[in-house]
């Protein structure tokens, strides 16, 4: 297989930057694609080359296979890295790349088919002897079928997008009346996220842990696992905090899950980086949930404890290279990642796009920043509101938690509302610190995680607010005085300095 020389990254945001960083280290030229809304995005500026692939809506740009391939042709890219989301788990795209003579940095289309469609994947896994959660085998034709199946397996159930993972198009349904609304929402989200509105159903396990195993395969039949990631801190089935090692895993359980994960990957002749997601119940039984046939958002924690650059391995394997490591390695120390979103936890996590006024990311020992923002950057409202990933490493879990607290305290990001404080509340919550938290954790503790006012900070803030008002008033008086001086009675100066009359009532 030919050596890759120029990589087009068919993605945006932090993952585009992440992939390009490794490409640059490997001496490979980088090509960005961007939508019209992303002309000023960092990934567009970060690459050696950049090509516009369409309007803001991802369905008209990042998801249009022809436009991506046209950019590859124009730039002469000989490989495409899909990142996560968008076309990363689209077998049609893989086949189109193949046809165009471009190396797709990821698994073969056939492996994607076998795992990408979630109901087919379940069938394949059952055949391979991998334990799965009870559920149905094929997407539903209509909501009536879904209702009938739900009543058969019993509520609560989970509706899931057949076309992709990452928490998009997922809805928990507790009773029959709620099914129709959830069905509509899940399908609509699935369509926007994956261009496929097929939805299937699984029995809802009561507050399981979500533990996943990183696997890696090469073209020579080698498959290994690179330990687990604990991803139970989820909100709306969207991971928020991830860590490795999982605080609930023993060495024996890691080995057992790793073995099953390798078996699952082998069953579909998997090549490249993939993740086998498991649900773990209170008795520590684990069930195959799904396979993500791509790099995960949370891959940095695995990189921290293994010292491996997973993107470099992806490229190496895509060129036909043999896996640099052929047996499992013990994790070194502990890593935690948090996902920073432009959203307001206090108003039901309402996304808050806008312009970054100022940013200073945390630094110092054991802190890694994966962001794609900069001061002056306007976060567009067309894409996922994740704006930054922050990860830390320390020799022990407790030290990693304390380091994450320090790093979050240090993060300055103004102009947008973010979940930074919420993230800090999570990692400092006794249940998280203890380490035995399940997927119900964030929902159960929501009020507490919003945080309480610190009276000392509130008092200092009150003083700051008064000083600010005072400085503003003084500045205003100075402006008026100078305007009156220069223009006599100064009618227009009064107009310029007019402030809207406030009110004690918000939102009125």
């Amino acid at each position, binding site marked *: 297989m030919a050596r890759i020389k120029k990589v087009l990254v068919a993605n945006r945001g932090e993952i585009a930057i992440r992939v390009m960083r490794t490409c640059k280290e490997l001496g490979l030229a980088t090509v960005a694609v961007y939508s019209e809304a992303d002309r000023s995005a960092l990934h567009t500026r970060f690459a050696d080359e950049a090509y516009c692939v369409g309007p803001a809506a991802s369905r008209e740009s990042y998801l249009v296979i022809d436009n991506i391939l046209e950019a590859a042709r124009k730039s002469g890219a000989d490989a495409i890295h899909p990142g996560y989301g968008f076309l990363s788990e689209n077998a049609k795209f893989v086949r189109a790349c193949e046809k165009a003579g471009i190396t797709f940095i990821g698994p073969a289309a056939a492996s994607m088919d076998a795992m990408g469609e979630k109901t087919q994947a379940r069938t394949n896994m059952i055949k391979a002897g991998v334990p799965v959660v009870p559920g149905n085998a094929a997407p539903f034709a209509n909501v009536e079928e879904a209702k009938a199946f739900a009543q058969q397996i019993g509520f609560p159930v989970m509706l899931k997008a057949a076309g992709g993972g990452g928490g998009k198009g997922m809805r928990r349904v507790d009773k029959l009346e709620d099914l129709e609304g959830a069905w509509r929402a899940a399908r609509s989200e699935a369509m926007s996220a994956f261009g496929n509105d097929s939805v299937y159903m699984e029995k809802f396990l009561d507050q399981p842990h979500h533990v996943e195993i990183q696997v890696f395969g090469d073209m020579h039949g080698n498959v290994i696992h690179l330990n687990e990631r604990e991803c139970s801190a989820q909100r709306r089935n969207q991971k928020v905090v991830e860590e490795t090692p999982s605080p609930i895993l023993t060495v024996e359980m890691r080995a057992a899950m790793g073995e099953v994960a390798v078996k699952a990957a082998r069953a579909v002749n998997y090549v490249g980086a993939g993740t086998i997601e498991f649900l773990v119940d209170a008795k520590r039984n684990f069930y195959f949930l799904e396979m993500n046939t791509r790099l995960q958002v949370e891959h940095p924690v695995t990189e921290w404890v293994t010292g491996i650059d997973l993107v470099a391995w992806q490229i190496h394997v895509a060129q036909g290279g043999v896996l640099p490591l052929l047996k499992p390695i013990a994790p070194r120390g502990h890593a935690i990642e948090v996902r920073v979103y432009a959203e307001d936890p206090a108003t039901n996590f309402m996304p808050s796009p806008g312009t970054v006024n100022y940013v200073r990311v945390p630094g110092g020992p054991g802190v890694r920043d994966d962001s794609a923002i900069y001061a002056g950057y306007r976060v567009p*409202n067309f894409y996922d509101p994740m704006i930054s990933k922050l990860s830390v490493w320390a020799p022990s879990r407790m030290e990693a938690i304390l380091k994450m607290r320090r790093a979050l305290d240090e993060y300055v990001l103004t102009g947008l509302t973010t979940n930074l404080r919420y993230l800090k509340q999570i990692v400092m919550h006794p249940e998280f610190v203890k380490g035995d938290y399940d997927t119900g954790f964030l929902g159960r503790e929501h009020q507490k995680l919003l945080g309480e006012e610190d009276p000392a900070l*509130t008092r200092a803030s009150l003083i700051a607010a*008064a000083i*600010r008002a005072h400085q503003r008033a003084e500045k205003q008086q100075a402006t008026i005085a100078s305007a009156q001086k220069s223009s006599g009675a100064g009618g227009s100066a009064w107009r310029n300095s007019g402030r809207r009359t406030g*009110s004690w009532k918000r939102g009125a």
Partner: protein
Amino acid sequence: MARTTKYFAKNLAHKEAEPVQLEVEGLGEGRYAVTLEGRTFELESLVLPHGAVSMIIEGQSYSVEFDEKGDEVGVMLRGQMTRFDVVDERKLRMRAATSGFAVEGKQTLTAPMPGKIVKVFVKVGDVVTEGQGLVVVEAMKMENELKSPKAGTITQVITKEGATVENGAPLLVVE
């Protein structure tokens, strides 16, 4: 002799609380004395190029970021955002004379962000409870339900399903 100015500030997280009085005295070169609940704090406030402020109050060092809208001052301090409504004496009297203190009245539900209206659950005349879902907006690939700010009756529906709305666009009115 420096002049002292009285300010009245209300923590918007505590709607029921009375405004707190603060006396601010400018001492020059960014130094101030602030009297709050009988205690006077000496402090120094340095405005940084990007609009943030470094405040040292009796040795305590605070990096303060602001988010201002009219008289509303949002203060971000060590990760905590506290929003205050701050007015001076003149404006306080003006507020008292007008309906500024009124808590009742009609509420306009506005779009908190640009997006697309995917669902409107109510019509004019519907009686709603506080916290009831009224509208679903899709933005950034997520559906977000907007809830009623108060119990009352829907008197106007300004938007409709399928509409694309800008940040701050009025959607409907509850009275």
